[in-house]
């Protein structure tokens, strides 16, 4: 096997797949020079995104989000709790992010992936709730990890909360609040809230992860791209264009102000796309 010469034209001597495995960075740079990526996307475009609401019928709210091949399933269960002393009007939300071994060849059973606790913490920082004395358990399962985990997780969490309907409750004899039976024949007590209410969300956060490599900014990376070019920037904007988070955890490439502004601009565009997709999914549900 000859070594590549300075002109680098080894691709004529070996198959494209072999070149991709052996010299991944050069393979990518050849594509970036033409402003395109191996899967045919232009640099600023994200992969096809779909949202399916109500994927889990036993949960109070759920959603399945897919960005390209990255699949996340989020489900919310509500429970009544006594609020804490400091904030008697606020409920609380507990977020757990799981990466079961099904999602990726590098995750093995018994050892939690490095990303899992980090993504859960980032999600807790981004989403905050505050309604009555409800405790919401939000669980997100990664079913397929193919890059941009945080984006898909946030999208599925937001969609699940969008889909959430707070169950009807009533006061029983001991003065405790119990969840009433849905289609039970007789209700002994009048339910405190007659119908299931939907959660009103103040403003919805959407995110976009970009990779910085030399002068290029690649939006929505796949796991292969993430492994080769390690510098990630995740920007979370909400629907009122406030910056919720700009997360860049180190990385070999430094972000100049111009790069930061480009990432934010790409994210703004993505927020509009995601808002539209979420609205379509929502109206699709209501027709049923």
């Amino acid at each position, binding site marked *: 096997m000859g070594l590549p010469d300075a002109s680098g034209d080894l691709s004529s001597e070996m198959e494209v797949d072999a070149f991709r495995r052996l010299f991944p960075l050069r393979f990518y740079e050849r594509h970036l020079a033409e402003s395109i990526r191996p899967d045919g996307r232009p640099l600023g475009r994200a992969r096809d995104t779909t949202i399916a609401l109500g994927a889990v019928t036993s949960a109070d709210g759920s959603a399945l989000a897919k960005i390209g091949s990255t699949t996340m399933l989020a489900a919310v269960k509500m429970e009544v709790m006594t609020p804490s002393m400091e904030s008697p009007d606020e409920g609380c939300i507990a977020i757990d992010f799981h990466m079961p071994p099904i999602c990726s060849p590098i995750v093995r059973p018994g050892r939690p992936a490095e990303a899992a*606790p980090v993504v859960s913490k980032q999600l807790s920082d981004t989403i905050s709730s505050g309604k009555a004395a409800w405790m919401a358990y939000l669980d997100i399962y990664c079913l397929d990890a193919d890059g941009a985990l945080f984006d898909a997780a946030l999208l599925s969490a937001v969609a699940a909360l969008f889909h959430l309907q707070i169950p009807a409750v009533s006061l029983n004899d001991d003065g405790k609040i119990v969840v009433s039976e849905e289609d039970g024949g007789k209700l002994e007590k009048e339910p405190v809230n007659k119908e299931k209410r939907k959660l009103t969300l103040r403003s919805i956060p959407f995110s976009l992860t970009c990779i910085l490599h030399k002068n290029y900014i690649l939006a929505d990376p796949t796991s292969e791209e993430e492994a080769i070019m390690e510098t990630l920037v995740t920007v979370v904007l909400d629907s009122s264009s406030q910056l919720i988070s700009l997360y860049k955890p180190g990385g070999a490439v430094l972000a100049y*102000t111009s790069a930061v502004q480009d990432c934010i601009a790409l994210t703004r565009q993505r927020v509009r796309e995601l808002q539209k997709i979420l609205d379509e999914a929502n109206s699709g549900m209501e027709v049923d």
Partner: protein
Amino acid sequence: MEIDRVDGRTANQLRPLACSRNILNRAHGSASWSQGDTKVLAAVYGPKAGVKKNENPEKACVEVIWKPKTGQIGKLEREYEMIVKRTLQSICILTINPNTTTSVIVQVVNDDGSLLPCAINAACAALIDAGIPLKHLAVAICCCLADSGYVILDPTKLEEQKMKAFAYLVFPNLILSVLPEGSLKVVGEPMEHAIITSVTQGAMSVDDYLHCLDRGRAATAKMSAFLRKTLQPQISSDSSKAG
């Protein structure tokens, strides 16, 4: 409009900085960094042979262990470990000693706000003390945004909790650097203006964030001058360390 801070500082004023090197005997490098009452101790061991699973053996690797002052290690500590690891990996020259692991242990001695930047500064000073080859130094700072849109630097814990949003920013610091002259200016902006790491919490507008970046940059000039001054004189009197 002036903002009143509890300890009487102005918006741009940092707390008193203190840094000591070589405080642990057995570690290959160690440093403690304190900003006001926040104090962090960092120790460096390495390079040791071998890398962990899933790491690239063609490069050196940095492993970070974060020890909180009290309590069990949870998600927050894991996230901090990841952020410090990736920040330090971007400043180390990873190709010099391939297939080795350098361990950085960060011990929180006291947390009074701006903890992560203090830890990154301590880790950077410890790496210098250990003699690990670095491309350039890193200086970290915390910028807080008040409701009125005012930016204050280096908040205490109380200020951090009261404020609408804050951002931890890490900038490179390179008066002397191994990089060639030409690469120091990209798109007309000097390299000191780029960010290595940014972690924000709370909602702020995009302009406020850019404003924080500017203020943070201005303040890091003072911090880097302090860092270099503290580390300079001990280099000539350093005895060689084992390992």
